[in-house]
């Protein structure tokens, strides 16, 4: 507080405690509504360890293994490992030497995430070149019990005492060349048993962790190349869950990938990078859960596919799911929240959300264009079908043609109008569809003439009332009879034709005699 003068306190006890045990309880209970976030915290640490190892060593054969062995879950990485001093820092809550923007984790809190789901948190690690391994045990259950007991007595225990009492750090021999860290979440609590669900865990990892694109994804390599060009610290790691290699989810029913780099206003700094693929089919990407854009920070997902929709789409946000893609955050001033469900509110973040609206605009336009194209294509396709049906009808020369001709004329006119109106939406490059559209119009116009001609002839052919010079009343009787027959034989046009012909023949005979 510059400029203000305060009287210095003189009564502070030299060893007074400022943090108490209940903090542990709060950490264990409140931070992770989704239990799988706990696994992500350790995957983040493992990823950082692997990045560190890769930066200093030639041996790049590194991966993360998640192993479910009830009642425990193990997260193993053969990254850089930790010496005893670094491991001891696990005991220090909120302490981290990692730098914001350099590492995925940096708060020094996530490392204790395990105590929210397991009775014990055990970290075993060995750094390369040291013939020892170190094991830190965090007895979370004992900690919680002590806190609860003390609470009943309105007593408190200092955080230091609590941690010292319920943690232990031991060492044992190890091969000098080994380098790894293994986190064991020992005895998963009953409310966290969902973590044993291998399929759910794989699903979570595939959506949230920096795993590679699936080799089956046809655009995977292409996309990765473009990410590498723009995102300097892009990396990924093999993650195996119970031996199954996990990849990012995908569908091959997509158009070729496109990308949008997002620069600062002065165009000097790259703030983000977006790649996207448009759905090849009508509407939203199927399955919808892989549709939309996902924010990525150090290749870890931030939020879900609704976060981009919520933050950068102002209008027609449903169109976000017509695409699949990612938005990599490059601006070091944008920092994810501890729950990784959004970014911390800051001018940088707000500015980014504002600037990233260009992505939404571009994607909306593409979606609309595609929608227009798709509709034009549909009309052309439908026109081809309609024309072929009408041609068949004419060939059969059904007796009902008189009534249907009116409808047919209307249908053909519709085909012509619809294609004429939407022809402009068909891209120039799609010569095949454009040619087809023109052909359909040409054929439709030709057919229209034909149908009109048929209508005229048939009108005459069927106009027996005039021919027989029937009076008004007799004419009504005739039309009522014809209508009744038509209704009755609606599905049997050939029989109807025979009956009407027979009727006309008889009528002509009867009336000609009468006229004679």
């Amino acid at each position: 507080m510059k400029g203000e003068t305060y009287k210095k306190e003189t009564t502070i006890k030299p060893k007074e405690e400022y943090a108490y045990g209940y903090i542990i309880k709060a950490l264990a209970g409140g931070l992770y509504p989704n239990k799988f976030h706990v696994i992500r915290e350790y995957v983040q640490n493992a990823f950082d360890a692997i990045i560190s190892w890769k930066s200093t060593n030639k041996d790049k054969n590194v991966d993360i293994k998640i192993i479910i062995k009830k009642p425990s879950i193990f997260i193993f990485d053969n990254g850089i490992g930790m010496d005893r001093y670094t491991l001891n820092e696990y005991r220090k809550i909120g302490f981290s030497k990692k730098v914001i923007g350099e590492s995925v984790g940096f708060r020094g809190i996530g490392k204790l995430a395990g105590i929210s789901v397991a009775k014990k948190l055990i970290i075993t690690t060995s750094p390369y070149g040291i013939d020892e391994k170190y094991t830190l045990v965090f007895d979370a259950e004992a900690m919680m019990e002590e806190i609860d007991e003390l609470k009943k007595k309105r007593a408190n225990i200092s955080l230091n005492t609590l941690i010292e009492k319920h943690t232990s750090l031991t060492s044992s021999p190890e091969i000098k060349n080994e380098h790894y860290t293994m986190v064991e979440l020992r005895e998963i609590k009953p409310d966290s048993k969902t973590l044993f669900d291998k399929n759910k865990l794989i699903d979570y990892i595939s959506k949230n962790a920096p795993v590679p694109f699936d080799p089956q994804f046809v655009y995977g390599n292409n996309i990765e190349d473009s990410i590498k060009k723009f995102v300097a610290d892009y990396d990924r790691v093999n993650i195996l869950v119970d031996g199954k290699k996990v990849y990012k989810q995908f569908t091959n029913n997509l158009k070729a990938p496109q990308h949008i780099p997002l620069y600062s206003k002065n165009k000097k700094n790259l703030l983000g990078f977006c790649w996207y693929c448009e759905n090849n089919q009508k509407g939203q990407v199927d399955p919808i859960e892989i549709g939309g854009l996902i924010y990525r920070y150090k290749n870890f997902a931030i939020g879900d596919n609704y976060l981009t929709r919520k933050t950068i789409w102002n209008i027609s946000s449903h169109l976000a799911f017509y695409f699949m893609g990612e938005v990599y955050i490059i601006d070091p001033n944008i920092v994810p929240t501890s729950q990784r469900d959004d970014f911390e509110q800051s001018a940088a973040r707000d500015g980014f959300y504002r600037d990233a609206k260009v992505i939404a605009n571009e994607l909306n336009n593409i979606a609309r264009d595609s929608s227009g194209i798709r509709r034009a294509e549909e009309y052309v396709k439908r026109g081809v079908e309609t024309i072929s049906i009408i041609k068949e009808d004419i060939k059969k020369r059904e007796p009902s043609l008189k009534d249907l001709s009116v409808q047919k004329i209307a249908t053909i006119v519709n085909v012509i109008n619809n294609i004429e109106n939407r022809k402009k939406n068909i891209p120039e490059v799609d010569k095949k569809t454009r040619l087809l559209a023109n052909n359909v119009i040409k054929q439709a116009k030709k057919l229209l003439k034909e149908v009109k001609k048929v209508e005229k002839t048939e009108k005459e052919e069927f106009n027996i009332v005039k021919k027989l010079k029937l009076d008004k009343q007799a004419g009504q009787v005739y039309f009522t009879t014809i209508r009744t027959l038509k209704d009755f034989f609606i599905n049997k046009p050939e029989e109807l034709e025979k009956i009407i012909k027979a009727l006309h023949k008889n009528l002509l005979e009867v009336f000609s005699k009468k006229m004679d």
Partner: protein
Amino acid sequence: MLPRNYTSTDNKERVREEDTILIKKEFLRKKRKLIYLGMPSGEMRDILAWQSYVDKCTAVEIDPHQRSELVLNAIKNGLENNINLLFGDIEEILINGRDGFNNGLEFPYDIVFLDCFGTLVYKGLKRIKAITSLIKKQKGNSFLFLITFNLRERRYSKSSAIRVLDKIQKEVSSFYIHDDSIKKRVHDVMGWYKLDKTNEMYRQKVFVSYFFKAIAEEHGFKIHVYPPIFYLGFNNSPMMHFSFKMIPEIDSPTKAISEQTIIDLINLNIKEASKKKLFVKKEQAPSLIV
């Protein structure tokens, strides 16, 4: 049953080599990699030593620390996906077919290796019940049954061992009902086994072999008992290692009958593993020559 051989010794390694010969034979006979059930402890030396012949493993561990070590070693050796890990007391697990966390045994196994703290009747009959349950579940499948007892732990009912020895004496004597000299010989030999000063290893040789033969035959297996091996294990604990070949006798209307008789079992020589060598022990129990 508690795993005691957390730290392997040269003697144990020598015994393992001997088992490797049997495992290799089984591997060649079955023309496929074998499935193992055992208590390999954190170092999982058995699994590592038998990697060439063993594919899938079920490891049972009661000590959480050893369990973590086992997972770590499995990962380091790229075996984590081949190991089905059960957590808890093996006797309970053999009886229930699964542990308290619903991890199940995956029968049948080609090799079963139990490492026992104390003898067969340590603290009651639960161990016998567990072994019987295991043999029942292996029905129709040949397998190698390896079992090691720590003889330092003497908490067992000696009277029940004596009762079994009496039973053996009666059974053998019944074959020679008209030959008093043989009956006397049987009486003398079994009397020697019952003496307090008789080393526990000899008593266990007869007791364990007899028990396994009885249980195996009762459940449709012919048994071949290999000479048991005595050795000093970790902290110089006296250990006794048995190897049994269990061969199913399919479609037998009565219980199976092994080629080895009770007399053959009594006359088995004990081997000893010491200083990386395996040899027939100098001191043997009196034999039954009939």
